[in-house]
């Protein structure tokens, strides 16, 4: 099966269609509001960075990005720390209730966040975690931990158990074997799990917005205030949108070689 020209053209068209809305956002972020509203231009006539300057010079704007980054990294760390041992247990051992537990974990991935909105709000308020980064990070564990366990279990099952036994015969203790030998062998799996934790925590807004008010407010919630008395500040809104896309593109670059397998959750 050789790669034909028509396939190449089809693929190019699809990618172009995919990128057009993003280009439009980028295009708009470099325009003044006056140009945006005065008529349609395919590229900025008066190229300006003023919209970005607004965001970078106002701490109430850029703190949104910092808040989002903080809870996303917290969530990634927690997710990986608890998911790694659990995935190892699921991939290597039979134990009482293992299958039920696995499916129960996965069922949490199916829970609509809207269902948990109110109880989360009350739970985190009552333990004094409301409006903190850790509250959002823990809330996002609801769907990220099951997914990470699932992905990592898939990757770990691909490593033959003989490695575990060999290390044991060579006199490795379990923690030393796990960190020194096992983790490096599934590092692409860890990368993919981290990537997914990043992705779903970064894009989620409903829970993040409900559990914060001022100190830990995510960028998505701050973006809504471009709607002012004089209408929407389209230029700044577009610039803020563009800035939320950049971290994702950077992260995907690092896992690009494993992304295809990763999207199949390590199960191909």
């Amino acid at each position, binding site marked *: *099966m050789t*790669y034909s020209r028509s*396939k*190449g053209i*089809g*693929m190019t068209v699809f*990618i172009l269609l*995919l990128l*057009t*809305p*993003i280009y*439009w*956002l980028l295009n708009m972020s470099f325009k003044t509001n006056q140009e*945006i*509203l005065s008529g349609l231009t395919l590229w900025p006539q008066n190229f300006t960075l003023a919209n970005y300057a607004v965001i970078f010079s106002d701490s109430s704007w850029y703190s949104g990005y910092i808040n989002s980054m903080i809870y996303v990294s917290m969530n990634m760390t*927690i997710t990986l720390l*608890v998911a790694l*041992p*659990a995935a190892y*247990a699921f*991939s*290597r*051992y*039979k*134990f009482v209730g*293992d299958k039920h*537990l696995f499916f129960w974990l996965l069922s949490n991935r*199916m*829970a*609509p*966040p*809207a*269902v948990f*909105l*109110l*109880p989360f709000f*009350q*739970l985190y308020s009552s333990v004094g975690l409301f409006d903190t980064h850790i509250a959002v990070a823990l809330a996002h*564990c609801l769907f990220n*931990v*099951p997914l990470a*366990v699932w992905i990592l279990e898939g990757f770990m099952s691909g490593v033959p158990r003989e490695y575990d036994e060999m290390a044991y015969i060579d006199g490795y203790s379990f923690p030393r074997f796990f960190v020194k030998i096992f983790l490096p062998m599934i590092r692409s799996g860890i990368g993919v799990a981290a990537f997914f934790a990043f992705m779903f925590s970064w894009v989620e*807004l*409903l829970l993040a917005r409900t559990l914060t008010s001022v100190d830990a407010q995510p*960028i*998505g919630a701050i*973006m809504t205030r471009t709607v002012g008395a004089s209408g929407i500040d*389209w230029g700044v809104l577009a610039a803020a*949108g563009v800035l*939320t*896309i950049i971290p*994702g593109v950077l*992260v*995907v670059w690092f896992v*690009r070689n494993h*992304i*295809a397998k*990763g*999207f199949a959750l390590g199960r*191909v």
Partner: protein
Amino acid sequence: MNKVPNNRAWWLVLPVFILVAFSALIPLMTVVNYSVQDIFGPGNAYYVGTEWFKEVLNDERLQDSLLRQFAFSGAVLAIQIPLGIGVALMMPKSGIKASLCLILLAIPLLIPWNVVGTIWQIFGRGDIGLFGWGLNSLGLEYNYTGDTVDAWLTVLLMDVWHWTPLVALLCYSGLRAIPEAFYQAAEIDRASKWAVFRYIQLPRLKSVLVIAVLLRFMDSFMIYTEPFVLTGGGPGSSTTFLSQTLTTMAIGQFDIGRAAAFSLIYFLIVLLVSWVFFTAITHLDKEK
């Protein structure tokens, strides 16, 4: 892989168990608790049994939004799964082009959902958006904030734009796992392209397609942020999906008992549909 029976493995699972119990079990129990009570204020709640459930099941607003939700999820699956397979078949097999395609395809997946809404809000407008302006200048009446059909199509198109890459990436990884020998054998047998797809590629894609259909069903059934930003549920309530109805009820109107009963029914529907689909697929496997 043959696994060793060892109940001490529970110690390794314990952190996950505690964490998920804290972030899922306690809230879920709270919801169950609310759903059987009528709450007027702190310390002023009455046990009402299954009253809320009866009321919710007979609520026309909810039935409408449930129907809309099924229509939307059905349309999403009907478009995205075939399109995703098609895109995966068109992708280059290896090399720098393949990497580039993968990265570009992944971009929509990494955009925060409210920004996805914003992008299409701008893109679809008749005055400042390329898409809306383009349609209008072709002589088509298009206004997603005023017209029900346009609003629906825009939400659907936005979701296709947003999530088809996920299906494509899943299928792509499935296709990469097919050994080259299969294709060589097909060539010797002079199999047509359709036969190659039908008897080699499609069966091998089954496991990833199951994941794709499940993920797409679950996530489209929970959709909230994107249509909320794009249309706000309107015009009227034509694009108000289940999550938005629920959020309005719980946070906006603070109708806790009813919202809790509704939550549980909502969750059960997602679980039930996923379970039926999953069992059906694994059953088909066994029969072969």
